[in-house]
């Protein structure tokens, strides 16, 4: 088993590299995150050059990728910043200078400044030392939109997403298994048909529709009808001490929206698997041996019936990490999904790439965990 895990982890490395390369180049070709600075008259050309240099945006694309991987703290960039102060022909800051020549000028405050005259324009020459250490050394770069390290930006919202995602998943598992087992044990009953109908309706609805409808019903209309209504955005009320009750109220609608569709889908799987299992020979044998129905259902049948679900959940769980993008957006939940959308809009590539990388790692890890769980749940499965 140990060898199998090691092999799978090693196999994941090229996969992650390929994903990283694709996402990096896709994001880099999507546009220039600082392009709008060129349209802002409040930003001088020098400030624009400096800002771009800080993020290495003017380096060739392969160099940018290299910087992102291994950092750029081992080198400095030469920048030529236009001097805005007036210069007469053949002089820069009052010092005679020839075209193409570099001279060091002592300024009024005593500091020395390397100056260049090029095409009749004076430039201040500065050397900007790189500061990025690269992802291989644990530095995922700085968010251009926020001016802070990516890990700090993600760290601020990841707990919110985990809270929403894990809670939703607990709700999904609880309800999906309960409903699925209930339906399987009462196949073709009124409630089985009723739940099946609702499941199909929910499965066929996009999540944004569920979200908007739930807001309309449980917040807008409930308020109109004079009923207790639910908040529609954020994690806490405006003036709050951060109580659990307040948080729970804010979670009801987002959790409901995330869970509703998944419960509908998963419960169908549970129902189908359970139906297959409870009619099998070993369950009949268990009954013949006099085991209680509850034990047969929840211990013997459910264990085998849950195998297909394990695969499905193994694929879905990584998305808890990355947040329910649509739901977070609609409910203004300050999580990873909201961060991802905003970063994508602002071409904040460092955040987007880290986000995708996190998702890729999570998918690889949970696939591995799923495979291991398979072996635990089904003794016939062996990895050697």
């Amino acid at each position: 088993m140990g060898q199998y895990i090691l092999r799978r982890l090693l196999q994941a490395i090229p996969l992650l590299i390929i994903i990283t390369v694709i996402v990096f180049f896709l994001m880099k070709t999507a546009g220039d995150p600082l392009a709008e600075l060129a349209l802002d008259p409040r930003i001088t050309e020098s400030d624009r050059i400096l800002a771009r240099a800080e993020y290495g945006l003017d380096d060739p694309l392969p160099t940018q990728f290299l910087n992102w991987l291994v950092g750029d703290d081992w080198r400095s960039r030469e920048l030529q910043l236009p001097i805005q102060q007036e210069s007469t022909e053949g002089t820069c800051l009052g010092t005679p200078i020839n075209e193409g020549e570099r001279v060091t000028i002592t300024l009024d405050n005593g500091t020395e400044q390397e100056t260049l005259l090029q095409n009749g324009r004076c430039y201040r020459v500065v050397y900007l030392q790189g500061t990025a250490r690269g992802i291989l050394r644990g530095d995922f770069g700085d968010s251009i939109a926020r001016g802070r390290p990516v890990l700090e930006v993600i760290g601020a919202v990841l707990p919110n997403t985990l809270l929403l995602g894990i809670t939703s998943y607990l709700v999904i598992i609880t309800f999906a298994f309960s409903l699925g087992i209930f339906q399987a044990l009462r196949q073709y009953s009124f409630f089985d048909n009723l739940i099946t109908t609702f499941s199909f309706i929910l499965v066929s609805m996009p999540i944004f529709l569920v979200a908007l409808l739930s807001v309309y019903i449980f917040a807008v209309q409930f308020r109109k009808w004079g009923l207790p209504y639910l908040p529609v955005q954020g994690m806490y009320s405006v003036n709050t001490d951060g109580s659990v009750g307040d948080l729970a109220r804010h979670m009801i609608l987002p959790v409901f929206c995330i869970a509703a569709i998944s419960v509908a889908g998963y419960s169908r799987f549970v129902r189908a698997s359970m139906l297959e299992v409870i009619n099998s020979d070993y369950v009949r044998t268990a009954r013949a041996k006099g085991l209680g129905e509850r034990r047969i259902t929840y211990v013997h049948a459910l264990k085998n019936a849950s195998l297909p679900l394990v695969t499905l959940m193994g694929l879905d769980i990584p998305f808890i990490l990355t947040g329910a993008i649509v739901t977070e957006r609609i409910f203004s939940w300050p999580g990873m999904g909201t961060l991802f959308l905003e970063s994508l809009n602002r071409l904040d590539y460092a955040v987007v790439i880290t986000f995708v990388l996190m998702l890729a790692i999570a998918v690889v890890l949970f696939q591995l965990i799923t495979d291991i769980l398979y072996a635990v749940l089904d003794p016939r499965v062996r990895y050697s």
Partner: protein
Amino acid sequence: MKKLFRIVSLSLMLSLMLVIGVRVVSAQGSTIVIGWEQEPSQLSPASDMAFASYMTNFYQRGHVEFYGNNAEITPLMITEIPTVENGMVVTTDAGATQVTYTLREGMLWSDGTPITSADCLVGHRLYSDESTGSFQRGTYLEQVASVEAVDDFTFVMTYKAAFPDYLVDATPQCGWPAHILNPLLDAGTQLQDMPFMSPAGATSFVGYGPYVISEWRVGEQVTFSRNPNWGNNPWEQAPAIDNIVTRFIFDASQMRNALEVGDIDMAFNWPVSDAGAYNALADTFVWSTPGVFQDALWLNMQPTDSSAASQAMADVNIRKALIHALDRQKYITTLLDPDGTLGIKVPANYFHPNWVPEDVQPLAYDPDLALDLFADAGWTDTDGDGVLDDGNGNPFLIRAYTTTAQIRLDFLTLMQADLAAIGVTMQFFGVPGGTVLFASYEERGIISTGDFDMTLFALSFDPLSPNITPEWFTCDAIRVPGGSNGYGFCNPDFDALIPQIATTVDATARAELYHSAARLLSEGQFWHGLFPRNTFYAVNSAKFNPDSMVDMGVLTGNYFNRVEYWTPAN
């Protein structure tokens, strides 16, 4: 027994949901919650985001304030507005503008430290030295020669040349406390890296304004509370509302829902298409203020297409005829303001209304006059097919381009019908703005190269200054690299006015100049306004008094600068 257990369980679950669902009425006191559609990266007065600069007005004020939709100017940190008349604005022997400012005595930073001229020197240090960080310097470096303190409350700002916009551009920067910034700058810390610039340290930001930052919940809200050191002087209006909360709601429809259910008290910057829905909300007052964009039709005066109709556009009367055929106010009523409550009018001129003389008015809708003008130019329906032609079998068919924005396409659809009614065929195309319509001359952009008969887009202006952007209007910007004047407006008199407007300090003389410029633009008959891009607001009128809020100011970062005058509902 099983059934009873189920009933009890279900009842318990429902009760729990109801208990959680009951709205906690917390002690809100006087707190106004404003729905904000974007979270700023940092709460800096030098931030790169317009939304952050609006927020800045809660906790950081400038030396003067521009109140109201007509940009009425009021001294805030200074004793009086410097003018030529009061002798505080003089011209040096070298021809440069020199302005003397006198700070009011008794002003305190939010940490209790007195404000003096030394603080205004910090602003100069930040803006005149590029090593202090990368942020918006604008034309400061180009315009300002020096700032010198005369005494604790007087300082003199000298420009490099004559500079009439000394109140609106390259202004003194007195918003940075010297006792906090100077030590950090001395240590080589750049502005954006200073600890109070990030969300984690924002509550330690020291400013001069009616509120201070009291909490920043990343991704959720920023809370501002009364500044204890504001309101002790006659010019500092003490706020009637104790707290302002800016709540980040990224989805436009959720903004409206949040207002409806009471999660927020005010929604702003929502699309005009939502006006009807906001108007329908109970206890909600809706209003709008002018923005800095006006969508307009730009007609090609120097056609590139060889068709007879395109070539006819060079005739000023044909351009007038086209506009007379368009019922522009009807389009506004149909598409933007069905019940007329928003009061949206056809803009008269490219300039902000502040800079336009009263005699410059939009061309009236008059299809008969349009037909007469076409007939005078030789365009009539000679073959009775309902389309104007030149008698040589050439129909009057023109091409119009705009972006893919639906509202613009809707406007063009209505225009197409009006033009068809007088026999003009207009084909229109929605194309990507950045890469096709507005692309540079080198990239063969439609506007830059003049490859159109008519185009619909918005160009911004500065409502606080009548300065003109040369690359859009001058003769030497017509279809050349770096130029955007693809419609071919060329008037040497107009070109000569641009530097004069930029350097004439005398207010009366300057007004004459920009009125002349507005008239010349109007006479060109190439720019015709369609609708102003207003900013829309909705407030819970049961909780707050809309009359205290409607004067929001013009869009140059000074929105919300009257927030201390806002009052709760009676």
